[in-house]
């Protein structure tokens, strides 16, 4: 037994990622094509005989396939949604077979801008085509086929992940029973697109960007990516939370020294977050992900009528938003809910009180987790009983 989970019954321990190769052409929404690709993914729990207890997790802008458990023996290697996924947790791995893949264009091990283009034997860099939410869902459907999962018990995602869930419900209605859309939106607002473009400009104007070909120059546009992350980070928190966490506190000093070095706590915090991010994330992926966010708008093909866009959906929905989330405000979630009940679909909606802004969806907030527990229990109950994996006694009744 590894050290990390020896005294923790709710941890998945160290998780080994898996790879799947697609040799076929993937036609992209942009009109471009990908001549085959690789997806990296993790799985947690056991798939039942009927292959009906699968839960697909869709990740957000800056995360990847490592949703739960640990990458290695360090505490820091914990998955981005480990609070929610694991034995006895709302997405209970004693009940469900949970799958999360790194999206195309990502930098976690799936084919992306930093991967080597077989045609040139050089990294794709700027030649990597722009991929959209629809393209991701198509590639996730390929992964589903490879895993032998015709129909997911639920597809679950927060933020950009929630957009993928919506797309799943529209595009492959027969392939999911439940759709859980958390802190998301059916399209970005002008303000959101504006933030994304400032982030992109920070990266693209960094002298080390080299038009996206920085791999060839042995550099990375660190400053640009760092600023992009700092900006993003501000928008993921709430004003109240920042006031509470940092206020106007000064860093390791009593008074102002009237210089441009970081003086306030909030400055050094954001810089630290930016620096940490630069070491683990690829700038071209950041550009791609923000574009995918901007482009997503399923109602566009239906004269801006979201209800019409969702007319093909048949899944049961849970939609969750957070009161202080101004990046993906409750209003955006209510628009989704409205379109769903216009279509007479089963939908429940919870607007969770939280001071943590957009980041709330990653945090263990009691009301939020109660609702997730309750909903995922219903998802589990709806799986025909003869198909259930054997459960240990300890987990009955949870």
């Amino acid at each position, binding site marked *: 037994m590894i050290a990390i989970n020896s005294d923790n019954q709710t941890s998945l321990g160290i998780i080994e990622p898996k790879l799947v190769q697609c040799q076929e052409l993937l036609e992209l929404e942009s009109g471009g094509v990908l001549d085959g690709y690789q997806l990296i993914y993790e799985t947690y729990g056991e798939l039942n005989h009927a292959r009906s207890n699968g839960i697909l997790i869709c990740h957000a802008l800056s995360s990847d396939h490592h949703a739960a458990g640990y990458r290695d023996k360090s505490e820091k290697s914990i998955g981005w949604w480990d609070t929610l996924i694991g034995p006895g947790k709302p997405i209970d791995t004693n009940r469900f077979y949970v799958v999360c893949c790194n999206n195309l264009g990502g930098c976690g091990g799936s084919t992306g801008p930093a991967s080597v283009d077989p045609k040139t034997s050089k990294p794709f860099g700027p030649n990597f085509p722009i991929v959209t939410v629809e393209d991701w869902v198509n590639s996730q459907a390929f992964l589903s086929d490879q895993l032998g999962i015709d129909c997911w018990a639920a597809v679950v995602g927060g933020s950009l992940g929630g957009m993928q869930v919506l797309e799943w419900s529209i595009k492959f209605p027969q392939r999911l029973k439940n759709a859980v859309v958390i802190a998301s939106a059916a399209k970005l607002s002008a303000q959101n697109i504006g933030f994304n473009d400032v982030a992109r400009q920070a990266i693209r104007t960094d002298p080390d960007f080299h038009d996206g070909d920085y791999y060839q120059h042995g550099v990375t546009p660190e400053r640009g990516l760092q600023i992009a992350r700092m900006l993003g980070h501000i928008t993921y928190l709430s004003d109240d939370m920042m006031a509470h966490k940092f206020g106007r506190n000064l860093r390791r000093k009593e008074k102002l020294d009237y210089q441009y070095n970081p003086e306030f706590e909030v400055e050094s915090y954001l810089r630290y977050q930016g620096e940490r991010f630069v070491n683990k994330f690829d700038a071209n992926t950041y550009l791609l992900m923000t574009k995918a966010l901007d482009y997503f708008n399923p109602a566009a093909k239906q004269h801006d009528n979201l209800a019409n866009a969702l007319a093909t959906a048949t899944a049961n929905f849970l939609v969750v938003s957070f009161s202080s989330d101004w990046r993906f405000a409750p209003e955006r979630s209510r628009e989704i*809910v409205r379109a769903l009940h*216009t279509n007479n679909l089963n939908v429940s909606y919870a607007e*969770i009180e939280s001071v943590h802004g957009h980041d709330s969806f990653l945090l263990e907030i009691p*009301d939020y987790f109660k*609702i997730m*527990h309750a909903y995922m229990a219903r998802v589990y109950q709806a799986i025909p009983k003869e198909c259930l994996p054997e459960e240990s006694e300890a987990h009955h009744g949870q």
Partner: protein
Amino acid sequence: MANKLSETNLSRYDLQIICDWVEPNSKIMDLGCGDGSLLKHLHTSKNTTGYGLELNSEKIAQCIDNGVNVIQTNLDKGLSYFDANSFDFVILSLTLQAMRDPKRLLAEMLRVGTQGIVTFPNFAYWRNRLQIALNGKMPVSEELPYKWYDTPNIHLCTINDFEKLCTELGFTIESSVAVHSNGKTNIGLKTMPNLFGEIALCRFRKND
């Protein structure tokens, strides 16, 4: 939305009256649906579909447990998120008196639904009258357990008041019943509901 009138659910008797009024296979909206037990009951007994609206997060989780569609909403902000004429019945059970703008909500009920069903504590119930008449104090009872200063029930009315408002809104009352909170009924309730009725139940629709 304020707390419900009391923490007790509708009695089986009240449930039965509402259930009798609701036609099979209807689409229902239950405003202030609590833990969803009414919707669950209607679904089981009348094969209804629809949604509950509720503000309290704890109750939202209970609704989901009960397999009821629930949408977290502050009823005081209206029903603007719901399309006109999209429900057969809109039910407001023991919640009207806690609304900031009951008149607007009633109008909204018949914008989104064909028929409305409202239940409310009848303030003209004789025990309430007695407490005011004899003690000169605001009534406190099992159904109205709060003091005047901490009550969520800011718009209490009598059966006569409610009927008058329905007329003003252009609603026709299709059925109305007054009951005791213990579910018992008697001749007094039928002849003088505004005096002997503790809880009023009313079904209405727009005038043709």
